C-alpha cells in the first residue's frame, strides 16, 4: 500500500506507508560553508548576516541574496568561504582584543602586499561589521596594520581577517538587482489591516473580548 495524503500531489508520489531508515548522509552532502555580509543602505558598513551552504562562490552569493536580502532592505552582499576567514580569540565585553593578543610570526609572506578585509565585533551577540581594508603580506601583518588604523576605538571583542581576493562582492553596475518591486507588499505586516473588519463585526454582532 502506498501513502494516502489529503494533498493529491503527495498521494501521486506513491510513497511507501512504512517509515524507511536511510544511510547516514555523507560528509559534504550539504556542501561547504560560506559567510555572508550585507550592506543595509548606501554608505553603511557591510555587516555579518550569517552562513550559507553552497557548492561554490557564485551559488553561495545567490543563496545569500535569497536568504538575507529577500525580506529586508539591502544594497549589497559579500560572501567568503568560512575556511578563508582567520579569527582572533574572543575577549570579554568591554575589552579590546588588539590590546590582549600576541601576534605570531607569519608562517609565510606574499612577495607583494595584498588587500585584506577587516571585520570587528564590538559586543558579544552582535554582528561583525567591516572596519576597513589594509595592505599586508600576511594575515599577521594585516592584523597589525588593522590595529594601527582601526584598533584604537575599543571595545573590540573579536576580529575577522580575510583576503579581499577571497571575498565575492556584488558589483556597482548590478545595483538594480536589489530593487524590490512594490507589488510585494503582501510580505509586510503593514499590508494587513484587520481592525476595520473586526470593529464592524463587533458593532453588528455585539461580541466582546471577555
Amino acid at each position, binding site marked *: 500500500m502506498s501513502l494516502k*495524503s*489529503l*494533498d493529491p*500531489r*503527495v498521494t501521486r*508520489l506513491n510513497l511507501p*506507508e*512504512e*517509515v524507511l*531508515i*536511510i544511510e*547516514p*548522509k*555523507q560528509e*559534504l*552532502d*550539504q556542501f*561547504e*560553508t560560506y*559567510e555572508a555580509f550585507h550592506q543595509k543602505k548606501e554608505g553603511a558598513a557591510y555587516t*555579518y*548576516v*550569517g*552562513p*550559507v*551552504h553552497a*557548492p*561554490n562562490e557564485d551559488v553561495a552569493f545567490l543563496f545569500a541574496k535569497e*536568504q538575507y536580502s*529577500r*525580506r529586508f532592505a539591502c544594497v549589497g552582499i559579500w560572501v567568503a*568561504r*568560512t*575556511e578563508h576567514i582567520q*579569527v582572533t580569540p*574572543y575577549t*570579554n*565585553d568591554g575589552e579590546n582584543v588588539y590590546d590582549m593578543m600576541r601576534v605570531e610570526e607569519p608562517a609565510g609572506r606574499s612577495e607583494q602586499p595584498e588587500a585584506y578585509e577587516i571585520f570587528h565585533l564590538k559586543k*558579544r*551577540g552582535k*554582528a*561583525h561589521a567591516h572596519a576597513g581594508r589594509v595592505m599586508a603580506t600576511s594575515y599577521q601583518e594585516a592584523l597589525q596594520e588593522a590595529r594601527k588604523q582601526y584598533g584604537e576605538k575599543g571595545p573590540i571583542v573579536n576580529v575577522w581577517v580575510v583576503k579581499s581576493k577571497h571575498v565575492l562582492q556584488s558589483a556597482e553596475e548590478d545595483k538594480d538587482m536589489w530593487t524590490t518591486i512594490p507589488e*510585494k507588499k*503582501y*510580505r*509586510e*505586516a503593514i*499590508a*494587513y*489591516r*484587520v481592525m476595520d*473588519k*473586526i470593529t464592524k*463585526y*463587533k458593532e453588528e*454582532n455585539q*461580541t*466582546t*473580548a*471577555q
Partner: protein
Amino acid sequence: MYGGGNVFEATKFDDLQTEDPAKLAEFEARIARGEKIEPNDWMPQLYRKQLIRMIEQHAHSEIIGALPEGTWITRAPGFRRKMAQMAKVQDEVGHAQLLYSAAETLGKTREQMLTDLINGKSKYSNVFNYPAFTWADSNIISWLIDAGAIVNQMANAKGSYGPYSRALERICAEEAFHLKYGHDAVVHMATGSPKQREMIQAALNRWWPPIMTFFGPSDKMSTHTETLMRWKVKMASNDECRQQFLDMYVPKIWELGLTVPDPNLKKNMETGQWEYTEPDWDEFKRVINGDGPCNAERLAVRRTAEERGAWVRRALLNPKAKYVKPLA
C-alpha cells in the same frame, strides 16, 4: 514558526562535577554579567548538548511545519493569497537554514541533523503531525501556531547563545508578517458568510487540542531545569509561555464570536491565571513517538525531497571541498 514544548530530559552530562571548576565559574560569571556565549568559548557539555537539541528541533519544526501550509499554496483562494502563502512558506524554510547553521556552530553537522530527522531520531513540533483538512486549517496554523511560536521565540532570543540569538532576531522580524497574515485570513473567514464561519470554527475546534500541547507539559522543577534557566538556555517555563499565549489570543478569538472548544477555559481573576482542561498528554506522547495521523507522511515527503535532490548535490560537489563549521 517554532517547535515549542521542549522537554528537557536529564542527560548523562547532568553531572557538573566532571567539568573544570575554574572554567565553569568563568562561564557562569559571563552569563551572569549578561554577556553572550560565542562558539569558540569553553562551555559545559550539558550546555552544548541541550542547545544542539533545542536548536535542531526548532530547525526541524520550521522545515516540517512548512509542509501542511505548503500543500495549500496551489489551492489557496485567489492569486494574492497564493503569493502570500508562498512567501510565508519560503520564510519558514529559510528559518530552518538559519537554525541549522546556528546548531552547526556547536559541532553537529547539517548532514547528521538531516539524517536524524528522517530516521525519526530527532523530534520536531508535534502539532505538525496533524493534518490541515481545509483552507481554514491552514489559516488557523498561520495565525495561532505562529502566535505560539512568537511567544516562544521572543523569550529564547534573550538566551545566552550568540548564534541562536542572532538567528532568532531575524526570524522574529520575519514572523511579524506571518502573524498579521494569519490573523487577516481568520478574520476574513470569521466575518464572512455562514459557511466560512462554520469552516473556521471547525478548524479551530480541530486545532485547539494540539495548540494547547504546543508549549509542552508543565516543567518538572528539578536541579536540571534550574541549571538551564541560570545558563539562559531555557528562558521561560512551558506553563508561563502557555499562559502568555492564552492571555494574548483568547480575547482575540472571542471578539470574533468564535468559541474555544474547552468548557473549562476561563481566566481566574484572583490569580490572574487561565484555567483549562488538562491537555491529553498520553496522546501527545503517543503522537510525538511516531503514532500520529501524519508522522509517516511528513518524514516520507522530507526523505523523498532529499533523495530526489541527491544527484544534483553530488554533481555540484567540488572534489576539493573541505568542511569547516560556520563561524558565528
